[in-house]
């Protein structure tokens, strides 16, 4: 079973040379730390920066240089700043190659819910609805079950949707799954996790074909 860092490490393997990547807050943010050093990747943040670097050194923070999580950041050579409309042109126009974000629920048809829990204070969808409606390549990073032990991979989302039929791949603490026309196809098991464990934690249709390999991280 993976921890959050493990999920981030596994997702980092999905990032390919030449990719522009948008990372959501939470586990997705960690992915940047584990991308292979021998490939070129640029990180975009929807508040208006391309070519994000690491956090600034103490004392070098600039209130005018932040990411979408409002964290102070730095930029790398070749970076650029732009307005919000241009930023979403990059996203909506599918110039960003990969979007990695968290979710509360994913349905077997690729629907995603990650912005609202009825009855609770709603903070808003931010850029998530634009991202999931636009990206060709969306990977969800999340725990397989919620705090009450209930599956987050469902036949149908119970929460208000963020987007429909858009998730392509899911990496959880238990498995790597692909969203197919028939349901969640199990691609890899986390170390020490059995197909049965995954089956028990998955409410939606789980497709198991042949021998499912254990992840290599």
């Amino acid at each position, binding site marked *: 079973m993976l921890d959050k860092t493990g999920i981030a490490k596994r997702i980092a393997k999905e990032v390919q040379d030449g990719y522009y990547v948008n990372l959501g807050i939470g586990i997705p943010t960690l992915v940047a730390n584990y991308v292979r050093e021998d490939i070129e990747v640029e990180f975009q943040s929807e508040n208006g920066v391309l070519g994000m670097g690491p956090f600034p*050194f103490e004392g070098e*923070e600039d209130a005018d240089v*932040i990411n979408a*999580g409002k964290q102070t950041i730095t930029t790398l050579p070749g970076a650029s*700043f732009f307005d919000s409309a241009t930023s979403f042109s990059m996203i909506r126009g599918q110039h960003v190659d990969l979007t990695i974000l968290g979710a509360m629920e994913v349905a077997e048809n690729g629907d995603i819910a990650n912005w609202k829990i009825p009855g609770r204070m709603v903070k808003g*969808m931010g850029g998530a609805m634009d991202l999931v*409606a636009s990206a060709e390549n969306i990977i969800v990073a999340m725990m397989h079950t919620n705090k009450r032990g209930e599956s987050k991979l469902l036949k149908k989302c119970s929460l*208000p949707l963020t987007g429909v039929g858009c998730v392509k791949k899911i990496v959880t603490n238990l498995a790597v799954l692909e969203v197919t026309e028939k349901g969640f196809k199990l691609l890899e098991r986390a170390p020490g996790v059995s197909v049965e464990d995954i089956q028990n934690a998955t409410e939606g249709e789980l497709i198991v074909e042949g021998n499912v390999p254990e992840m290599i991280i």
Partner: protein
Amino acid sequence: MISKKVNSVSEATEGIGDDMTFMFGGFGLSGIPENAISALVKSGVKGLTCISNNAGVDDFGLGLLLHQRQIKKMISSYVGENDEFERQMLSGELDVELIPQGTLAERCRAAQAGFPAFYTPAGYGTEVAEGKETREFDGKMYVLENAFKADYGFVKAWKGDEAGNLIFKGTARNFNPNMCGAAKITVAEVEELVPVGTLDPNQIHIPGIFVQRIFQGEKYEKRIEQRTVRTKNE
């Protein structure tokens, strides 16, 4: 050269009144029109509809207007990090319309550019699209969204000149350029008002035609929301 310069924030906010719709640039607390917000707090105008990506924090940004109960409705994409906001929203004092961030930006840009409406994929199949026209283009579904209509737009730039030309800095740019010219009156505040002719015509982010009033802000606190750093020996 047509001059847009006004001499004070009170001159810049002349004409504001109750129940108006205002736009505010900024993302989180970055690039917000700090001086205009202070003036609005002082003015006591109320019943406002505010279009702004975020709603500030309890004691800064639009949080100051919320605290004085001057805001009737917020149109935003993300409103976390604000207890007073939460209280007013849950008690029903405050009306909130949440819309996708890219749609928010483009509804500003549409107003600036004279487009009444556009089709966007964001929000299709969600409650955001409820009551809106949806339509298929090339096998994909889109939602029809309208241009915003606002009375005043308050933006903040790094440098500007008397002609109203603006240059923004870093990610403090965000929604500010998209809101210029999107309201009936655009009020720009700048950290530094430079002499006309100083800015390279090639490097102006927003031409002065989109700005009605410009002034140099008295001071900028530029508060940081999430100070994330690393140590040099890391």
